[in-house]
């Protein structure tokens, strides 16, 4: 129809905009690998390297060549999926990350879903009932939520639910050793176990997941609830709500079809920032719960100065985030008909 062509153009524009961002991400990642103080070759050769092996590393990594040439090599390696060799595991970094990524994604996505299904209703309720206990609860949750260091919340939850109450399993990884991990299909234990029909394992995996996911959700809940409340308040005080009320529309229609759908737009925009926080906090939560994802991998690599692994991790996280942002923006395009048109 009439509207489809400018909207399609907007979608293509958005996709095109991701390209310079990806290039920027790659450039920064490259600079980070080369910005190591002193001689990068010394770092990449490892702790136990001697003169000869350092020199070998230098030549192998092309560190003796000028920076632009190094960049071309770096990009070439990236295109082949080569992120270098991990010193600690001895495997290619890309393989390690690919193996561990599903664990991180399962944790992060569960947490985000938890956060969204709690925070959005909370924010809506707080906005529609200002001054009531829901509103106050929302305010407390929001302010406390952003003040909680995730790693500390995690430890506190472990202390309460594992040590004191004894309900939670020991905070060590995705599955207690008494279970066998389900066959690898998606890498998400919950999905894989369900596919196998192994509900025993499914329950075991879910039990392990509850605390870390709750920790992460508590942290990401706050910004979503805050934004939902604010956006809902703005929407409710708009002129078009008054028109809807003056036309006698019922409360639920006014609230959901008119106010909520408009309030959703800024909330979706905030999700990008929330993802950024969640992916960052993910690293800390994985460390606390010994979760075998890419975050704890990076932390372990940091401890032994395994820089290729750390930089590979940074790059993968950034690319993941770029994709997530793209998804969010396309989602936004789907719900806001104004995208693709000049304002007014």
């Amino acid at each position: 129809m009439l509207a489809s062509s400018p909207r399609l153009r907007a979608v293509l524009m958005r996709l095109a905009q991701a390209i310079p961002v990806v290039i920027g991400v790659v450039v920064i990642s490259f600079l980070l690998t080369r910005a190591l103080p002193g001689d990068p070759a010394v770092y990449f050769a490892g702790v136990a390297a001697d003169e000869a092996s350092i020199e070998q590393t230098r030549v192998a990594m092309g560190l003796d060549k000028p920076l632009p040439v190094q960049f071309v090599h770096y990009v070439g390696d990236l295109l082949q999926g080569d992120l270098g060799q991990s010193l600690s595991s001895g495997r290619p970094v890309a393989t390690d990350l690919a193996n561990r990524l599903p664990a991180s994604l399962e944790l992060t996505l569960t947490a985000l879903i938890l956060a969204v299904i709690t925070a959005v209703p909370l924010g809506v309720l707080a906005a529609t009932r200002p001054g009531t206990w829901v509103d106050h609860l929302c305010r407390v949750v929001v302010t406390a939520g952003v003040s909680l260091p995730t790693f500390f919340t995690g430890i506190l939850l472990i202390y309460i639910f594992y040590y004191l109450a004894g309900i939670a399993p020991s905070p060590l990884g995705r599955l207690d050793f008494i279970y066998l991990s389900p066959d690898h299909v998606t890498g998400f234990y919950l999905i894989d176990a369900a596919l196998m029909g192994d509900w025993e394992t499914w329950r075991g995996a879910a039990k392990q997941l509850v605390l870390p996911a709750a920790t992460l959700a508590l942290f990401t809940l706050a910004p979503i609830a805050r934004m939902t409340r604010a956006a809902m308040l703005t929407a409710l005080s708009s002129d078009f709500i008054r028109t809807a009320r003056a036309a006698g529309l019922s409360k639920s229609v006014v609230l959901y079809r008119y106010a909520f759908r408009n309030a959703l737009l800024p909330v979706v925009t905030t999700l990008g920032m929330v993802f950024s926080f969640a992916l960052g906090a993910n690293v800390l939560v994985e460390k606390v719960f010994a979760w075998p994802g890419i975050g704890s991998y990076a932390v372990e690599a940091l401890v032994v100065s395994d820089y290729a692994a750390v930089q590979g991790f940074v790059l993968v996280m950034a690319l993941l985030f770029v994709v997530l942002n793209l998804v969010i923006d396309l989602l936004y395009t789907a719900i806001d008909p104004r995208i693709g048109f000049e304002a007014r």
Partner: protein
Amino acid sequence: MLSVKDLSVIFQTRRGVVDAVRGVSFEVAKGEILGIVGESGSGKSVTSYALMRILDAGGMIKAGEATYSGIDLRRAAERDMRDIRGREISMIFQNPRAALNPIRKVGHQIEDVLHQHARATRQDARAKAIAAMEAVKIKDAEQRYNAYPFELSGGMCQRIVCAIALACDPRLLIADEPTTGLDITTQKAVMDLVRDLIRERAMSSILITHDLGLAAQYCDRLIVMKDGLIVEQGDPVQIFSRPQHPYSRKLVDATPRAGATVRDLLPADIRAPEPQIVASDKPLVEVRDLVKTYAGKSGAVHAVKGISFTVNQGQCVGLVGESGCGKSTTSEILVRLMDATSGEVFFDGEDIAQTPARGFARDPRRADIQMVFQDATDSLNPRHTARQAIAEPLRRLGRMRGAALGTRIEELAGLVGLPLPLLDRFPHQLSGGQKARVGIARAVALDPKFLILDEPTAALDVSIQAVVLNLLVDLRAKLGLSYLFVSHDLHVVRLLCDYVIVMKDGLIVEEGLAHHVMSDPQNPYTKSLIAAAPKPPERATPKDQLEAIDAQHATLHDKRAS
């Protein structure tokens, strides 16, 4: 059919309880159009929201009765109110674009109302929505059905709002400033449409407006409100010819109308004789083939497409047009805040368009060309006092300091009628009229030769507009200024200007001596502009007026005596 008795509305705010409406009583008869007129803060809109029970948070009806066809609107259950809203009583609002859900197709918004009041089924909703759109004279209703508000013009949005309001055949329509924010020609089209629809369907209506002229033209009866009270009600002709209350008299006086001079806008007791200004025919500003083209997102925007005109020394030239006609762009270029794409602007014989706008701050002619801005609030830095605002040009361009500066500021304050104690206030502590005075004082601080007035009264209430317009006339006479008065309102322009230029789509469509253009417009666009302006009823003869004034004096004496 609607009867309001002693209605009082209060608002719970942080500064305590505010009485927005303080006991108003009126009735609306079947088939009648009632106008409620008042300036900002008079409580006219709040009254209508209270009737519909859609007051903002914190607002409540404190006392009084409101009865609609036997239904007690104050005590009716919320569910019953929902049935009344939209089906019995409807509303249309100002700023129609914001009044529509921005992300819902307009057709669906009409359907929502039809469904709510069980006027349509799933099968026939679409057809009925389109019929409702056709009823408000929307062409291609089938296609517009799928449009979003942002794809429609302001006037079209207001028609959609009307369609929503009228979809369920209500018997009373409340129109809350329905034309504010619309261009003057659109304004007339919308008002004519609303009136015709009301008459066709034998509905009653309440028209809420700040524009006494508009209300008088379209209403059967008028109510004048001030500070939450009704000060006068009656027949429009009667209110115009013999206003009883001093406030309605002031409003009537201040409404620009055919035949009135700028002095006539002021209350009779403070009218001074109008100064005689004779403009020379020596040109001060000559604009030649001025062109301005922007790079817009969807191609070039031709804001000004080659215009030429002259402002003589001591002359006041009016530049009139609707939004988007290029008048603001022209004034920005003349005041050297913007560079032209091509063309010349001669000031005192020299082409100032050659000096780039960015460097003009250091140009010796900077002080000679000044401007009074449209929105007095926006044109004052919220963190600077009135004194600092007026001092700015004196310090920068006048290089004044210390006692000389202070003296000059106070002199200017006196010139524009700003009481000295107000000089140390911040903008938010000043009223609209006071802010306008500060803006004018700042503009004339350096005795400029040429002053551009960019809709200086657009954001002001009509009574304050009258005061500010008169101040501008006096200043022009006292300081020998030349004005370029930019406005959308021909009636206001006519009061001040000797010469009028009418612009449309970046071109001059007509120009000439003000009274010629007003009385005998040649261009069809000028004609439509003049025709679109509200026409208040003719004023009473001067003799009647004198009698009325006498009567008022008599009552004043009585009051003092008692």
